[in-house]
């Protein structure tokens, strides 16, 4: 990911800030500037999510994406936030311990790095509540 592309969404990634449509009362994370339901009729405002959620589905990745080779095996999941929207993130736990329906909470973690000397990308990952 390039620095500008990351930087534009930095606040959203650091603080789980998404958006809310006042007209439909729908919540969006990742943030959207247009409501997909009422489109131009909608009124969009920023919204900070609690980060509380549960694992909707997951996988344990053994063959990594480029740049993630030294993290295998890692758990990737879709987390359903209590306010409604879902997002894709890593779940930090033993791959044996993850399950569908497991309650999770957000943590601030390194996501990746732009080469050896490059910018470090930070963002939100999740940990099981029982940890």
């Amino acid at each position: 990911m390039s620095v500008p592309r990351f930087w534009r969404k930095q606040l959203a990634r650091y603080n789980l800030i998404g958006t809310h449509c006042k007209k439909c009362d729908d919540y969006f994370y990742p943030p959207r500037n247009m409501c997909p339901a009422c489109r131009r009729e909608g009124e969009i405002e920023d919204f900070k999510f609690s980060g509380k959620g549960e694992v909707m589905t997951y996988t344990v990745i053994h063959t990594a994406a480029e740049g993630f080779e030294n993290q295998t095996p890692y758990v990737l999941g879709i987390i359903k936030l209590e306010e409604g929207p879902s997002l894709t993130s890593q779940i930090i736990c033993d791959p044996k311990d993850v399950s569908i329906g497991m309650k999770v909470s957000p943590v601030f973690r390194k996501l990746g790095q732009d080469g050896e000397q490059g910018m470090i990308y930070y963002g939100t990952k999740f940990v099981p509540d029982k940890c």
Partner: protein
Amino acid sequence: MRDVAIIGVKNTKFGEQWDRSFRDLVVEAGVGAVDDAGVVGGKIDSMFVGNMSGGQFVEQEHIGALIADYSGLAKDIHVPSTRVEAACASGGLALRQGIYAVASGMDDIVIAAGAEKMTDVPSAKASSALAAAADREWEGIMGATFPGLYAMIAKMHMHKYGTTSEQLASVAVKNHHNGQHNPIAQYKSPITVESVLKSIMVADPLHIFDCSPITDGASAVVLAPADIAHEFTDTPIYVKATAQASDTIALHDRRDITTLDASVVAGRRAYEMAKMGPKDIQLVEVHDCFTIAEICAIEDLGFAKKGEGGIVTQNGETAIGGRIPVNTSGGLKSCGHPVGATGVKQAIEIVEQLRGEAGKRQVDGAEIGMTHNVGGSGATAVVHIFSRNR
């Protein structure tokens, strides 16, 4: 709108082709299809080339013009040539654009082709290029891979419906069985459920034998108005429906992660256009980039009840000779998946079946067939229905 027919077809061999370039492959397919149709270059009105990631796989963009040039259609006759991109559905969409051109009356003879050269880069680079069909900023950055996204679909399908790893594997076993009789297939060796389950885990629950391979290949068809198709061939195959639908680019935004709504809607639109239902379809080529994808596809298109895609596959209902043969070509799994070409190759399998030219893969008395081509984890779906009769 005019009725449209396919009057010529040609696939290159699919596989690892280090001795051949991107343009070699497309020209072989294009010239082969034109030969099959008995058309001469000066008669071609336009062409559409499906290609997903030429920029990343061979560092070449402007592929429409490149292919027109190397096919001898650029100089002197200046045939318009357009690249079409919709990730792994690029080929199906190029075919759809070609059908539009003929159906509208703007063009008569049109080439629809698809191609990808994926083995000129290391496999990590290829995987990374493929991952660009998902949401790079919100899936890729978290370490999502394509197998990883489909693995999350599979995990949820297993959780909701009790689908098993053995049922997933039975998709791969069937498709390899079919592919051994397809001369273009990358992998012609049969496999067993045990060998799938013993193969290395890529993204739990998907083993490497649950995944389609990295492949080079090209496919092309020639389209014509149905009214003049018999001037070129005794066995024109008629396009009864072309349909397309979009969905969210990211998997996490879907209504139901185990259902590809784009497939459901494209399927419904195709059935409406052809005035047919799933029971009228005698064989179907579906997008089996991963074994779970075929299970979702047959459910989404109405060939199995939701949640029963695994069971019907295990029962042999989707084998050649079964209730609804699925992926008689061997599918993406055994033929290989040159992403931009796949959608066109699927159409060619149906054409060969409806012409009665599929050899040991032949479905007896096949008259109506369907193709289903998916881009990304389901953000684009393209469905076609073809018939022997107009």
